């Protein structure tokens, strides 16, 4: 880049910043802060949507004006174990008043697990840069004693048209098998706990949806999702820290990444970090261990040697 073009670039960036003003600047990234959100609660071009795991938590108090998504019915096809089809998603987005010119802020309980999953599904259907996560989610909002409301606020439906599903964001079994067979250069990043990864246990206690086998996808690396989060307030660590965290296991953005967990939902939290915060090429494998671990004859890595849940 020549000196002249550098100067030109600088001038353009400066002019753009001045034109857009502070608020818009704050929302150029994939995250918004609780402070920014509270200042922009009444902006008609900001749509806040809660995606929480625990039922009833939204209804008993949510960020004022927020709409609700029940992830296990709204964002999935309940019978075929698939993400919501294009028509279902389009109907949902229209009902929520979501469109490409609306800044959508997703947030939820449990460190934004399912809000991140929502962001992944939104992205697949063409809503990417205008969809943000509230950094710290419900946890930080509550810790900072910011207001919550229980009354519903009606929104005007949008005329959003769904895009063709972006297949690059979603890894299927064949994509994962290709990495195992070294036919693909993608790396699989498994975000489950070390004990699940090593095969000591098949799943954490209390989960009914299991694989028959214990262990992990051969060649995959393990960074539990929670390591990317500041435990105190649920915010994501800084991009530098995150880069370092994943570089420790050889994930540095030079090769495509596939994120995986047990059922593919927590892994979207890490997918969001890699794809949106760090800008790596990343796909989420929603089949995850309950699909891969159950397929007859596929090779697995099982360092702990657990067979049928025992030794």
């Amino acid at each position, binding site marked *: 880049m020549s000196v002249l073009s550098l100067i030109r670039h600088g001038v353009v960036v400066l002019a753009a910043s001045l034109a857009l003003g502070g608020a818009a600047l704050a929302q150029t990234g994939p995250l918004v802060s609780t402070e920014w959100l509270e200042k922009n609660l009444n902006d008609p071009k900001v749509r806040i949507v809660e995606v929480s795991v625990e039922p009833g938590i939204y*209804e008993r108090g949510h960020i004022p004006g927020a709409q609700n998504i029940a992830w296990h*019915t709204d964002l999935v096809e309940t019978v075929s174990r698939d993400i919501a089809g294009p028509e279902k998603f389009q109907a949902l987005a229209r009902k929520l008043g979501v469109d490409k010119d609306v800044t959508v802020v997703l947030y939820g309980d449990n460190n934004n697990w399912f809000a991140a999953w929502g962001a992944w599904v939104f992205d697949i259907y063409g809503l990417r840069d205008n969809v943000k996560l509230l950094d710290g989610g419900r946890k930080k909002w509550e810790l900072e004693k910011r207001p919550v409301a229980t009354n519903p606020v009606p929104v005007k439906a949008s005329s959003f048209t769904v895009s063709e599903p972006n297949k690059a964001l979603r890894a299927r079994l064949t994509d994962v098998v290709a990495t195992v067979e070294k036919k693909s250069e993608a790396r699989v990043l498994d975000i489950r706990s070390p004990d699940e990864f090593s095969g000591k246990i098949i799943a954490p206690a209390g989960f009914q949806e299991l694989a028959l086998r214990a262990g992990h996808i051969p060649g995959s690396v393990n960074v539990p999702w929670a390591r990317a989060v500041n435990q105190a307030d649920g915010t994501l660590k800084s991009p530098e820290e995150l880069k370092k965290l994943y570089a420790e296991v050889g994930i540095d953005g030079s090769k495509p990444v596939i994120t995986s967990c047990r059922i593919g939902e927590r892994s979207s939290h890490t997918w969001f970090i890699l794809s949106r915060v760090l800008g790596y090429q990343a796909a989420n494998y929603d089949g995850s261990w309950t699909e891969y671990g159950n397929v007859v004859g596929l090779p697995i890595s099982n360092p702990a040697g657990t067979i049928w849940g025992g030794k």
Partner: protein
Amino acid sequence: MSISDDSGALDYELARRQAGAEPIRLPPLRFIAAAVVAVALAVSIYLVGRHGDPAPQLQLSLILGAAFGFVLQRARFCFFCIWKDWLDRSDPRGLLGILTALAVGLAGYTLIYGAWLPDPSGMRLPPTAHIGPVGPALLLAGLAFGAGMAISGSCISAHLYRLGEGSPTSPFALVGAGFGFVLGFLSWNELYLLTISESPVLWLPRQLGYGGALLAGFAVFGALAWWLLRAGRPSEEGAANKAQLDPVAAIFLRRWPAWLGGLFVGLIGVAAYLRLSPLGVTAELGSRSRQLATQFDWLPARLEGLDSFRGCATLIRDALLTPNGLFIAGLVAAAFAAALAAGEFKPRRPTGGHALRGLVGGALLGWGTVFGLGCTVGTLLSGISAGAVSGWVFALGLIVGMTATLKLGRRLGLLD
């Protein structure tokens, strides 16, 4: 041998009549003792608010539990005693109190539903409301629970407040209920596969709309109240009413009129649903029984579908302090304070009869609670308030079970 429990239903009618004639007096010692318990409860509420996790939920559970216990004790809101009043004396007041609670609950829930789920016609159910599967197992649960009430002398919520009155039966009934829970869990998988898995979850507003369900509920409550007032015997409240002019005596010494108790029970139910979860008193008891039985390896590794149903969840929780645990603690402590102040704390040494009736009746209560997914509070009150058909079916089974067991027990000379 008669294993009757003469305290299972304290003779409140007699107490009520006497109360009308006695001059009002607050024995200082009794009142100080009650005040000490009340202050200890207040300190606990403060401490839970400071150190609990999550503090607001735990603290509010304790507060609502205390309010519930106080109201239950003061109004003698005991489903079985109320039913016996009606059967034996045609006294409709207690039943009218229950109808009041249900009407307040239904109106309050409908108000909340309008905000939480504006359109009831879709596939979704209002979050956490106790709307359970309706089938033969639910009816069976009601029958067993009713039989358990007749034998042990109370339902679970009344045993809890009776604990605060020093009842000799209630501790055994609650232990018995623990065993009943385990028996319920042991038979769950069979009954689930046989019938529960195919039982529909029926929610009246989905078919009738909110207005329709509310009107239908009110019509039934109104018709029942009209019939009770016609068929019941007029009560002699004149003397008591005159003596109730002193507000301290009216609140702390005299038995509250049942309709007032019902009004508060309904309001507490609505408050609990709005802020925490539907009112219920068995979640903690159930989940602790399940935890214990799991530790002894008594239960099957998986209880099919149990944890996916709405109702008093018995999911095992590791936390020492749970919302429902604190609710129960508050209930018992406030009932104790209220009973102390009113001179109704009368602990007695339990006899073999107390123990036997408590354990056997309690086991039936526990078993019925597992399949009813709650008790008189969690399924009947919170269910009917929620517009759930399951609440009505459980109530029907309960009335039949209670009446049949009582009549049979009396004929055999085992119950009084």
